[in-house]
Each structure stands twice: as C-alpha cells, then as structure tokens.
C-alpha cells in the first residue's frame, strides 16, 4: 500500500492535536499563573497588576488557547494550500493587531512591565521596566488581555507549524520557554498542572524526535503511545518529589561547597596575588567592588565558604577587605598608586607598618589567639582575617599585606594560620577600655607611623567632601536627627561613640530586610535607603553609616567579610549567609576600630535554627551566646563579656580534630577523590578516543575527497607513512598514485577504491603482524581494523612485492 501523506493520517492528526493543545493551553495557563493570580502573592509582595486581572479570566484564556490550537492544527494539517491558510490566518492576525494597535502596544508594555517588576523584586540584577500607561488598573488589564490574546493566537500558529510540519521539539521549547524564564529564574512557580502539560509536550516530542519522519500512521501511533507514558512519569516525579516541604538535600550543599572550593582553586591559576582583587561579583563578602546600586534581594545557598579553627570562643569578625571610595552607589578601592605615593613621601618607606596591626601594638595585650582559616569557597583574593592581627611573618603564613586595605592570598595558598589579639577582656568597647586604663597611667604605644598614616593618608582619603550634595544631605540628616552636635564632635570627638550613635539612628530610621530590592535608577542608593526605602541589609547600613560618619568628620571605611561563631577545638563552617559588611572608624592612638552598625535582626538566622546541614556541622551556638537582641548600642564586633562563657550545651569534642557530625551520625561527604579519579579516567578515555577518532575521521574525509586524484594521493601518503611500521607499498599503488599525480585523467572510482583497499588492507595486516606494544600504539594512531565475521572475511589482498 502506498504511504499516505503524513497529514492525512488520523492517528498523526490526533497525536499532533494533543501535543498542540498541551503546548498552547499549557503555556497560556503557565504564563498567567506565573505572573499573576493569588498564588503568586505567597512569594512576592506586590500591588495588584494587570496580569492578576488576566489570571482571573484563566478559563476564558484556556478556551481561546484551545480554539487557537484547533485552528492552527486544521490549517497546518490541510493536504494542500497549507501555506495559504497559514498566511490567511497571519493576515487576519495582522489586521486585528493593526485595528487595535494602541491597545496592543499598551498591553505589551504593561505585560513587560509587570514581568520586569516581578523579576526585579526577586533577582538582584533585575531591573524594573519604567513605563507609565496612564490608564487605570482595569484598563491596563483589558489592554494586557488583548495583547495576550493576540500573542497566544500568533504563538498557536507558530506552534502548529513546529508540531505538525517541522516536528522539532526544540522549536516548541524555544517558542514556549523564554516567556516563562524570568519567572522561573526568579524562583516563582507556575501552576503545576498547566506547566506539566507543557512539559508533557516537550518530553513527548523529544522522545518522538528520531521518528519524526517515520510513516505517518506509525508516527501517530508512537505519539499516542508516548504521551500517556510521559504523563505517568511526570506524575510519578511530582509525587515522588513533592514541591511542598522541599528542602535542598545535604549532598547538594556539600557538593556545592566542594565545587566552589575546586573552582576557587582553579581560578587561582588566573589571578595574581599582588594585584587588585579579581572578582567583580557584587557579593557581600570581600570583593574589589561593592555595588550598592545593583544590590537586590539577598540570595544564599547555604554552602560553606570558610572553615575556621581557633582557640577563641565567640563570634569572630573575619575581615576581608576595606573599600574607601564611594561613587555612584558603588564602593571601590582607592586609585592605584595612592598608597605608593604615600609610601614614597615617608622619610623611611622601608620601615612602614601594616596599619591593620596598630591595635595589636597597643599595650597591655588582652590575650593571644590563633585562627586557621581555610578558604573553601569565598570569593576574592584576600585572606579573611580576625581582629586584631598581630605582627607576624606574612609571607611564611601565605599572605601579603596590600596597602592598608587587606591581606592578599599568595597563589595556591588557601589555608592561613594567623595570630591575633583580643583587646576586650576589660570592656565591651575600646572607649571603655581607653577610659578605664588611661587614669591608671597606662600609656598606649602609638608608633610614629600611625601618626603619619593618620595625617597623610586617613584624613586625606577616608573623609567625605562635606560640600558635596551627598555630604550636605547626610550632615543635615545627622543634625536633624540629633545624632550630631558641634560640641560633641568638635575637637575631642569620640569616633566610637559617634559610630554607636549613628548605628542607633539607623536602627531607628530603617528596618533590616534581606529582601530589599535594588534602589531605583537615578537616585543614590544611600539617599534612597535613608529617605524613602527605609529598609536594607548590612550593605545599606554599613554604607550609610560610613558616609554619615565621614560627613561628621570621623574617618571611616566600608569593610566586607564574614562572621563566624567559634568554639575552641571545633571547626566552624562558615556559610555564605554569614557574609557581612560593617564599618571601621579611625581611633587615634589605636588604629582602625570595627563597629557593627547593622541591627541585630541581621543575625537572627543564627538563632532561628535555620541552619542547614552544612552549618550544623559547626558547634551549635548556645543560647547564652546568642547575639544581643537589643541593637543599641550595637555590640562591638568582637567577643563581648558574656560571650566568654563556656558553652553549656552541645557535645564537646575531646580534641580539635574531631570531625563534625550531623545529628550524631556520620556526616555524608562527597568522595571527592573518587570523583577526581573517575573524572581523570573519563578524561583519559575521552582523550584516547579522540586521539583515535579524530585522525580516523580526518583520514576518512581525506580518502573520500570528491577530487579522487587528491584522495588517491592522500591514500598513497598513508601507505608511505605506514612503511615506518613495516608496511608495504605495492607497485599497483605506486602506479595509481603516479596516475593520480601526473596523468591528465582522473582516477576512476574503482581505482580509488582499489587504492583505499590497499590502505585498509595494509592497516589490517599491520594490526595483526606487529608486536603487541607496537600494535597497541599503531591501533591507537591508525584505528582498529574492521571486525570481520569468522569464515566470511576474505584475506586482504596481498600486495606482491
């Protein structure tokens, strides 16, 4: 029986129809549920949008989607004049769009704005779409509905072509997935049944892809057989892995930590230790820049970035790098050469002291501690160091001081052991410390470099231009709010107290919110934070506090790093959510003094037990050590007096090497070595395969050259190359090669085949007669001989010499 046309088979039409319905209706309802409707409100805090109104009419859009799909199916399934029918439908669509052009454009813009707003609210790098239609919400909803209807009609027509005619699954994927991607990337979920219908179409078409040009009735049969099976699989996956109560598995967290560590180490090959920090990630951890303007909602994966082992007990602030310059909503380092210029101006540049060790030079010492920080996934090229670093052999410790800003990692050095000094056994703050000790006649040691550094560098680079618009605004804000007075911050100002006052003011003015979206374009993010937004997280608080302190004449700088809850003898795994930013103020006679300006709400994750399995490997923080809930005054970023208490709960390891466990059971660890071995084996295998496959393909291609003479000459060269392995070149092969080279005639296909036979025969012969080792190498380079069946293969033609 002659094959009938593909479009005329009822089975094919039925299968295509189901696919098209799934694609069109699934997309329509997925889109509406993703960007509008009530379920969305559990994820986002957004005013009603036009798409909410459209989502309320989901039944109507479902009807339209089915109608459009059927029309498209009919048009593309016609035995003839399909193009005419599709063209007519497209023309009708164009006419409708033309007649309602203004509404369609408005609806499109409104839809894009809604999607962009949602995206910007959920993703840090998302940007809102500035569009004001001037219409009421109801009218915007109507316009968006009209736009979506026309979009759906056009999409159904395109999907009809992709399903019925092109039969390519990836075209369907390209047509339906991109509009949903912003929502999916923003961790929003579409309605699951319609999304599964869409996935059903994708998967079924993928499974039928290799048979897309089969006989029409068979293809239809296959589609109808595949559809229910895929539906069962999708249902099973949904039931086995339900969305409700989903938590990321522990192995994924650990794998991310390991991968991040591997990635960091690999990146070490491409970075220089003494150059500027390479990373430009807008991460709250240490980075070369901190983009406050683009800082959107915080997103953490929970992976471990640092592993800290120390004999210190309490919360450690691990300092990454400090940033000095604030411009256009972005913190950055001082221009290159600034530090060198300052150094050159010193009387004895070789005798300079790293400014971060000034506090440790102060007497008396409170206590000496040691911390070993293993960077397993933190960004940046800096060392995360505790306060206050003692002077030590930096290079031997695998790091190098860079200007006055940070310690750079030496290449390949990921674990650093540092000695640091705790200056707070006598009080909670340096002010109290100084006030208590000064009457006793204890003189602080202030190296002469510290004075020079203050005069020449700190005052020059860590203050704000009060004449600037931002400086005036901040100074005015401080004065109006009572956080500043000329008498208080005049000659003998107390920078630490000023910092606490500013922290209290910020806590009063603003609210801590990790979901804070990025500031609108065109306004300084600090001004927005202080004036309108009034919510933010550590980047906002630290930035605002730094600039406000500078506007008051207090030298201050922005610092990023991590916080870690440490217990002696235990390894503390620092997750990425412990990334933090704070402020350093300059205290004369002491050095840079860190001040916490973010409200205590920022640390509630420590207390809430929202500790994922990675964090759980750290010693749990006893309740008595939880941060002070009262943000005022903000505790100094070092161990407070109450934190010196020994933990009362939780198992205590007998020695520091005790591996952390989760829930008392053995912790799952990814067998990295095994994975590496497997990866290496796979790599070697792939390499060997490539070494064999690529030359073989190259030879096949050359021997199949349309220019038979050229192919024959290449075959002859192959024979010559095989001579070094003991191959033989027959006279006939030489004759054919000479004919190919010198004759005006082209070799016949038979002659070329004969020459190829010589090449293949010689290759097979050598694969048999060579010594084992030579044979292995020969087979590797020249490929394995074709398998011949026993008893049937004729011996290769011997080339008589």
């Amino acid at each position, binding site marked *: 029986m002659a094959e009938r046309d593909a479009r005329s088979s009822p089975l094919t039409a039925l299968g295509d129809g189901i696919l098209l319905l799934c694609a069109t209706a699934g997309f329509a309802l997925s889109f509406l549920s993703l960007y509008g409707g009530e379920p969305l409100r559990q994820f986002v805090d957004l005013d009603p949008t036009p798409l909410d109104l459209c989502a309320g009419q989901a039944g109507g859009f479902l009807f339209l989607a089915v109608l459009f799909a059927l029309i498209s199916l009919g048009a593309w399934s016609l035995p003839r004049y399909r193009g005419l029918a599709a063209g007519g439908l497209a023309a009708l669509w164009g006419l409708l769009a033309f007649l309602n052009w203004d509404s369609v454009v408005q609806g499109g813009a409104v839809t894009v704005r809604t999607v962009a707003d949602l995206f910007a609210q959920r993703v840090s790098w998302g940007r809102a779409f500035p569009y004001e239609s001037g219409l009421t919400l109801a009218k915007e909803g109507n316009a968006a509905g009209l736009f979506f209807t026309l979009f759906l009609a056009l999409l159904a027509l395109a999907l009809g072509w992709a399903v019925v005619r092109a039969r390519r699954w990836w075209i369907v994927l390209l047509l339906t997935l991109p509009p949903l991607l912003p929502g999916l990337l923003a961790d929003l*979920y579409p309605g699951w049944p319609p999304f599964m219908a869409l996935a059903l179409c994708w998967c079924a078409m993928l499974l039928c892809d290799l048979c897309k040009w*089969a006989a029409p009735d*068979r293809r239809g049969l296959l589609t109808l057989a595949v559809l229910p099976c895929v539906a069962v699989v999708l249902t099973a996956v949904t039931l086995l892995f339900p969305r409700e109560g989903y938590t990321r598995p522990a192995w994924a967290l650990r794998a991310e930590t390991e991968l991040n560590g591997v990635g960091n180490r690999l990146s070490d090959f491409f970075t220089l230790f003494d150059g500027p920090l390479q990373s430009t990630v807008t991460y709250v951890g240490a980075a070369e820049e901190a983009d406050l303007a683009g800082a959107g909602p915080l997103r953490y*994966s929970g992976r471990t970035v640092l592993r800290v082992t120390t004999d210190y007990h309490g919360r450690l602030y691990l300092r990454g790098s400090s940033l000095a310059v604030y411009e256009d909503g972005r913190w950055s380092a001082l221009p290159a050469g600034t530090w060198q210029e300052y150094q050159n101006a010193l009387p004895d540049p070789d005798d300079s002291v790293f400014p971060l060790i000034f506090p440790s030079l102060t007497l008396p010492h409170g206590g000496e501690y040691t911390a070993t920080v293993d960077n397993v996934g933190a960004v940046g090229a800096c060392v995360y160091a505790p306060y206050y670093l003692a002077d030590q052999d930096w290079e031997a410790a695998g790091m190098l001081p860079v200007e006055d800003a940070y310690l750079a990692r030496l290449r390949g050095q990921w674990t650093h052991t540092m000695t640091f000094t705790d200056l707070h056994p006598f009080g909670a703050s340096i002010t109290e410390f100084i006030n208590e000790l000064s009457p006793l006649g204890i003189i602080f040691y202030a190296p002469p470099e510290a004075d020079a550094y203050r005069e020449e560098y700190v005052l020059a680079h860590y203050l704000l231009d009060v004449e600037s618009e931002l400086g005036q605004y901040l100074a005015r804000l401080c004065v109006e709010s009572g956080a500043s007075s000329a008498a208080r911050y005049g000659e003998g100002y107390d920078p630490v107290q000023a910092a606490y006052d500013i922290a209290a003011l910020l806590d009063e003015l603003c609210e801590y919110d990790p979901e804070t979206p990025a500031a609108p374009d065109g306004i300084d993010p600090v001004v927005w934070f202080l004036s309108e937004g009034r919510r933010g997280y550590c980047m906002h608080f630290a930035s605002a506090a730094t600039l406000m302190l500078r506007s008051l004449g207090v030298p201050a700088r922005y610092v990023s790093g991590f916080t870690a809850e440490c217990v002696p003898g235990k390894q503390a795994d620092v997750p990425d959510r412990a990334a933090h930013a704070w402020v350093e103020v300059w205290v004369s006679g002491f050095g840079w003094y860190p001040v916490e300006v973010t409200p205590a709400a920022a640390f509630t994750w420590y207390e809430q037990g929202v500790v994922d399995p990675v964090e759980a490997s750290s010693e749990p923080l006893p309740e008595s050590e939880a941060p002070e809930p009262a943000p005022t005054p903000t505790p100094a970023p070092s161990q407070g007096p109450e934190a010196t208490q020994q933990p009362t709960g939780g198992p205590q390891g007998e020695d520091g090497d005790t591996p952390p466990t989760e829930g008392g059971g053995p912790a799952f660890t990814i067998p990295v070595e095994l994975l590496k071995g497997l990866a290496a084996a796979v790599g070697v295998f792939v390499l060997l395969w490539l070494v064999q496959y690529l030359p073989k393909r190259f030879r096949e291609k050359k021997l199949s050259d349309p220019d038979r003479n050229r192919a024959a000459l290449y075959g002859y060269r192959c024979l010559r190359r095989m001579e070094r392995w003991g191959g033989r070149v027959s006279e006939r092969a030489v004759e054919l090669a000479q004919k190919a080279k010198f004759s005006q005639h082209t070799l016949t296909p*038979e002659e070329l085949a004969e020459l190829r036979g010589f090449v293949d025969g010689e290759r097979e012969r050598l694969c048999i007669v060579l010594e084992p080792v030579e044979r292995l190498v020969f087979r590797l380079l020249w490929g394995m001989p074709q398998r011949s069946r026993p008893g049937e293969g004729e011996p290769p033609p011997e080339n008589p010499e």
Partner: protein
Amino acid sequence: MILRRVLYGLALLGVLLFHITNENYLAQFLLALCVALPLLSLALSLPGMLGCRLELSAAPPALERGGDGRWLASVESPNGLPLSRLTVRLTGENLLTGQKERRKLVLSGVARRRPVELTVSAAHCGLLELRADRAWVYDYLGLFSLGVALPHPARMLVRPIPVHMEPPSIPEGLGARPSPVSAARMGPGEECDLRDYRPGDPMRAVHWKLSSKWDELIVRERADTLVPLPLLTLDRFGPPETLDRLLDRALGMSRALLAVQRPHAMLWLDGDGQPQLRTVSDEKQQIDCLHDLLGSFAPPVGPALDDQPELLRGAGGASFRIHITPEGGDGHG
C-alpha cells in the same frame, strides 16, 4: 548519536550543577526528569530493539555487467511502533576482484518491511556480496544501543557480456560427446552411466523404466564411450578490466559451443593456485560454472595454466583445448 549522548551528558551535568547551586524546587524536578526520561525511552524502545529483524537481498539476483541492480535492506519491528534509528555497517565486496566498499546505512523511523534501496556498482564482473558487519538499534532518545542479529549476506551475480564467437572445428575423436545408447544395444557386462535427458538425445537411449519411476526422463550412456570434452582454459588473473574481457570471451565461447550441442569443460586456477574443472553441458551448468568462476578471488597476478602442463592431461587422455585470452586470438589444439 554521539552528539546526542554528549548533549544529554551536558544537559545532565547542567541540571546537576543547577541542582547543586540552586535551592529552587524546579532544579530537583529537572534532575529527576532528566534521569527518568532515558529510562522511559529505554522501556518504550526495548521491545522493538529486541525483536527487530533486518534482511538483505539483491534485486535482481543476477544481471549483466553494467546493468542496473539494487541491494534491498528491509527492517521489521515486532510491535508496530517505529524503531528510532537502526545503523548498519555494510561491506559490499566483489568476490572476484576483491574490491570492497564499506558503507553505513542509517534507517530512522522504520516500522515495517519497506525495503530501502542501495545502489550497486556492477561495473565489473563478479559475484557481489553485501554483508552486514555490525548492526545496532538505538532507543528513542538515541542514548542506548543494542546489537541486532546479523542477516544472511545478499549476493548478486554480475555476468560477463558474452562476445559473439564462432565455435572452433573440433577434430574427430576429440571432445566427442558421449553417445547415449539404447538398452537393446548394450551387451551383457557393459557398464553405463545414467544422466538427465538433454534435448537431442535419441529416444531409444531413454531408460523408460527409471523415467516412469522418477517421473523425469533418464537416459543411459555407455561408460566406455566417454572421451575427453573440449576444454576451455583461461588464466584467471589480472586487473578487473582484463578479467572482464577474459570472461566476456569465455562466456561467448561457452555459449557458442552449447549452441552447437557441444558440451565442454572449463579449467582455471583459483586464487590459491588450485585447479578448478567444471563441465558445462547445458545452461544450468553454465550458470553454476559462472558462480564458481566469479565467486572466488582472482589475484592481479597469478600462475598461468601453461606453467602446469600436467593439468592439461586429463584422465581420458588428450583433449581439444581452447585457451581463452582477454585479447582474443584464442589458441586451439
């Protein structure tokens, strides 16, 4: 399919990395789906993969040199669902000249016996053979493959184009055909051979009793009347073009002899130098002889029959030898 496997590997790796680095539920769903889909594909494909049958045939089984022939490859799926992709590595070989041609046949979406035609190069005489060296079928995603039972090789005889030749005059007593005798003429103790009836045999030579018993005509001939047949000899070596000309002439001479009711024998040396002698009394034997003549390898260079005169002395004594050469000028004697 390598590309599909690589793409799947990349997709799986991407989804795995997505799951590792993202806490979205969709990442886990995608990973589970990415693992489940190949299993589903395998489950759907396995019945067809296990039960499919591949057949090779030639159409027509024999043709003259330069004729239009086709190889036919047909596949059948047991459950009616199309097979995703069947790949067959084929080797076409001219058993006479030793020329080989390897090709790969890829069939997608085949479900029933619907032969696929492959071209045949019938430029040279010989027995062409198409055999499947390896065949395997993929699942619907193209990730898993399974070997398929290899079919019997297909063969196609490419006959020479016979040259019109005049039969030589054979001297009396040489190359005479054994004469059938009637039973009445046979004396006691005389031995006779039995053979099938050939057109031209006298009716009195028919062994009626046996013929009625076997339901076909059987004639008897006196054994002692056997005399050596005319012997066509040919040196079967050389390049394909030379062989073509040689075989054209050999077939022409054989037909010319048969046309005058002259049975004859053909003698040649095979690729190993072993003599091959075939008797040609009718067309059927001629075709059988051609199969033997064309179905073994003829080397480019080989031993000549003149170098082995003992082969030319048959058991029945001297025979009338007709030596066929590619260029003509066949020697008699």
